[in-house]
């Protein structure tokens, strides 16, 4: 299967004769590794293995490994032998083809190519290139404690997969990732001191200012990334998110659980008519809403704020336009106390509420 697709790929590329030699050599060695060494070797694609493969006889590997590919392979071999002599001056193009090929192969395995410093310099920085590369600089190791990186990585994976499995997939665009712990030298080289960062390395020339994705302003949703990529490379990616079934499954579980419980207790369904239970449930909704849980849900504020200077933890936000989660928990508690305790008890808590509202009013003024 690999062979046929490579042939088509070959035609699409429209490679010249000199490139053909190299192409054949790499394809042969790829087959060798994939089918003979591949299962035994680890994920690291070391160049030594490749060169060893090249050193060993092409003929032997083809004939022994792929008898079913023999006609095609021998045809290629003939071509290879014919062109062997005239390929010297096109070394640069050879290199390019080799690189494209290597990149294609990696991206056929994983939609996002992991890179270390060497690979980055060789495949992204080094000049002969006819493809664009999107690089995410990140720090995914757990000890770095970068939660944003993880979220950004998920979005990036969604985008890369959408590209990988789209019908427009070609060798014009690759998605790669450089982790700080694997390529700290790259970070230093690019003068980069924050992660995650998305950069676009265009096919020609150096990256400009707009080739760095403005994470702070736009966010890292994959749709935004796709828009930015379309802007920079003219490659349109339609983001396809894998549907999230977890909510549905949880709901189904809940429904079946409740249904099961009801079924088990079908002889004694009195508790459904218990007004207290329903009243409790209604009050829960009301308290949750009036204490601003919906705001927390939509805006996602921090639980509390710790002042970096004096280490004071403040649970109540200074302005009336925002709040912390802790704040709404306090309010939740207070209002429950207010309502459920007898009417006398609520009076003790009102001074607090009043002082708080006075503070807010002062803020507004």
């Amino acid at each position: 299967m690999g062979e046929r697709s490579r042939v088509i790929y070959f035609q699409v590329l429209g490679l010249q004769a000199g490139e053909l030699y190299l192409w054949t050599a790499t394809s042969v060695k790829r087959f060798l590794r994939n089918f003979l060494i591949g299962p035994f070797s680890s994920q690291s694609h070391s160049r030594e293995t490749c060169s060893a493969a090249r050193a060993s006889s092409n003929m032997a590997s083809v004939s022994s490994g792929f008898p079913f590919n023999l006609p095609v392979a021998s045809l290629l071999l003939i071509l290879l032998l014919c062109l062997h002599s005239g390929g010297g001056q096109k070394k640069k193009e050879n290199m390019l083809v080799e690189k494209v090929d290597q990149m294609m192969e990696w991206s056929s395995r994983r939609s996002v190519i992991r890179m270390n410093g060497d690979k980055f310099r060789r495949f992204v920085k080094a000049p002969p290139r006819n493809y664009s590369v999107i690089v995410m600089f990140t720090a995914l190791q757990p000890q770095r404690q970068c939660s944003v990186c993880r979220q950004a990585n998920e979005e990036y994976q969604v985008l890369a997969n959408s590209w990988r499995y789209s019908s427009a997939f070609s060798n014009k665009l690759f998605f790669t990732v450089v982790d700080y712990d694997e390529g700290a030298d790259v970070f230093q080289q690019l003068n980069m001191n924050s992660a995650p960062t998305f950069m676009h390395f265009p096919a020609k020339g150096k990256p400009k200012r707009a080739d760095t994705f403005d994470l702070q302003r736009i966010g890292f949703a994959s749709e935004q990334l796709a828009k930015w990529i379309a802007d920079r490379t003219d490659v349109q990616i339609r983001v396809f998110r894998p549907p999230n079934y977890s909510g549905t499954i949880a709901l189904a579980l809940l429904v079946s659980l409740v249904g099961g419980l009801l079924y088990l207790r079908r002889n004694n369904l009195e508790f459904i008519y218990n007004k207290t239970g329903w009243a409790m449930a209604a009050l829960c909704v009301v308290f949750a809403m009036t204490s601003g849980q919906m705001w927390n849900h939509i805006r996602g504020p921090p639980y509390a704020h710790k002042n970096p200077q004096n280490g004071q933890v403040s649970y109540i936000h200074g302005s009336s336009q925002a709040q912390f989660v802790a704040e709404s928990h306090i309010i939740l508690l207070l209002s429950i106390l207010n309502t459920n305790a007898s009417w006398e008890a609520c009076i003790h808590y009102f001074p607090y509420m009043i002082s708080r509202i006075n503070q807010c009013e002062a803020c507004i003024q």
Partner: protein
Amino acid sequence: MAEHHSVSDSKHKASAVNIGASLSGNGRSSPAGTVGSSPTGALSTGIAQPAGWQSLLSFTILFLAWLAGFSARLFAVIRFESIIHEFDPWFNYRSTHHLTINGFYDFLNWFDDRAWYPLGRIVGGTVYPGLMVTAGLIHYVLNLLHITVHIRDVCVFLAPVFSGLTSISTFLLTRELWNQGAGLLAACFIAIVPGYISRSVAGSFDNEGIAIFALQFTYYLWVKSVKTGSVFWAIGCCLSYFYMVSAWGGYVFIINLIPLHVFVLLLMQRYSRRVYIAYSTFYIVGLVLSMQIPFVGFQPIRTSEHMAAAGVFALLQAYAFLQYLKDRLTRQEFQTLFFLGVSLAAGAVFLTVIYLTYTGRSTLYAKIHIPIIASVSEHQPTTWVSFFFDLHILVCTFPAGLWFCIKNINDERVFVALYAISAVYFAGVMVRLMLTLTPVVCMLSAIAFSSVFEHYLGDDMKRESPPIEDSSDEDDKRNSGNLYDKAGKVRKHVSEQEKTEEGLGPNIKSIVTMLMLMLLMMFAVHCTWVTSNAYSSPSVVLASYNNDGSRNILDDFREAYYWLRQNTEEQARVMSWWDYGYQIAGMANRTTLVDNNTWNNSHIALVGKAMSSNESAAYEIMRSLDVDYVLIIFGGVIGYSGDDINKFLWMVRIAEGEHPKEIRESDYFTPQGEFRVDKAGSPILLNCLMYKMSYYRFGEMQLDFRTPPGFDRTRNTEIGNKDIKLKHLEEAFTSEHWLVRIYKVKKEENRDPLVHSPRSSSSRQKYTSKKVQDPPRFSNGEL
């Protein structure tokens, strides 16, 4: 059901005597100062002759609540003057004006060629006409009686007058739900609660002002029709619903809440003929009536938000049919039929739900992603502070009222509980929906307060012969702590409670009453304070206060709009950002390109593109749109933060959405991703049309000796481009504090001068001499 019902009815009657007693407390707490109505005298006689005094008292209290609500809303009119104070209602005013001059049918067919030039707008088919028709009708009746008022005054005072009607309908609804005392308290609450005042001050001529009345009245009639099961009340409910549909888009809340109520009643096995009659009548007549509004049209049978009503209608018919069959068939036959029916119905419901979620998601997606919708600040979730700010102690007491309602459930209390839960959810999601929450909060708080007062204010005479049913509320109230998990009450227990009740002593009673009254007093003070400071500051005029407390009024907006009205030709077209479209049309009576009815995103994007391009590119756009004048709002002189430079990023964003090749948001930021107007700002920003028009000749102006010339007070920076030359525009008018600046778009010269020809210098001379001839109006800001 019927049995349950009569019990609750008799309860109301039995406790009627008690209400007279609790009224004195209510009266004192109401801000109108019912204190003057001699409560003690009324009370002593009231016991002797309950019915007459009671109705007189409730009438008085309702009247005073109306008066208090009306006068609390007049701050803006008294401090400034009797005009429409907000910007958006200028459109409503303009169309009301059109209605009174040209008549109703002409209004329905009105094609407004003054808006959305060159497209125009069909106004009659794209507005909810209820507000205009109401105001027009009042104006017509008054003039028929030879009371000659201007339509403007009718518009200004419409919302305060309707607040009185709202409090009356709230009274009626709460009386149906609980009792008369609670109703009166609810009426007082809603008259002054800030959450409702925010949308109904005098001078804010907005749909919500009359819609809340229609909402409450529809609910009252619905509850009434469910209680009585008479077609008469159901038809009344439909008519009120029709009025609501004609007034506000929030009618969707009604058409979902009432079916929900019916559905929950079915689930609770509270189905009865009354519910069947009420809902069938309401759904059919209400549907037909709501489709009479041109703007609504066929939406009720097409869109997903109306589908719940249709589904519940079908379900109710099926349920009634099953009930009918149950009487006719044997048990075995009925069971098979039932299972068949249920499985079919389940399949149908499943398919509809899938369909609805599918269609619903796309609209939700659009709502999130269109920048125009995101740019409106009202579409934000609510913090607890705004709950407390708008409702004050009611937000703490209304859960208690909800508790009482659920504990003593009946058909109509199911309704109010559902209303409370759904409204509190929507209010949590979006700030502006606080408005729909406010009435139910008032009603439930009134129920809570009323039961407390009933408990602690009841005089001992009445205690001796308490009606048996009556005790259930108080019983709960008294030891709310201990009784929560008791399923049913035992009669013996009640009598025990009565004994402890007598031991409560007058001291505790009076202390608790005093504290309750203090709370209510604080509520009244808070309401007045909020109304006065937060909700009564008009946006048409700006007020600033000096150190000695004297007030300056900056009347730049009206100054500029009257300049436009007086000094430009009748058909002149004014380009501005969409926020100011209604005002220009209403106050200046000139044609606008875009306005607050943001129906055409691409047209707005075109204006945004013109504002964010450089001058020559913008000139092309302006010429293609026949623009004569450009109006911008600039706050840099006085430090007004809502000006166009601060809104500018939204213009860029909206323009980028439609023209991604020409306009890029990132071009307007510094490399560090900041939006700056000083020297470090991006050069594209510093040369775009909006920047140039805002800061034209601002660099020459030194506001203060401590700051350099060209110091922007809003953004607290010195501007980056002080030497601004305009080629295709000329300054036509700048208001006193530079708040409004108007530029005239020059007509094209005969031919574009060639750059290298010798004649070009002469034309440039001519250009400068023109500027000297007609100097723009400047004055130093006094602030």
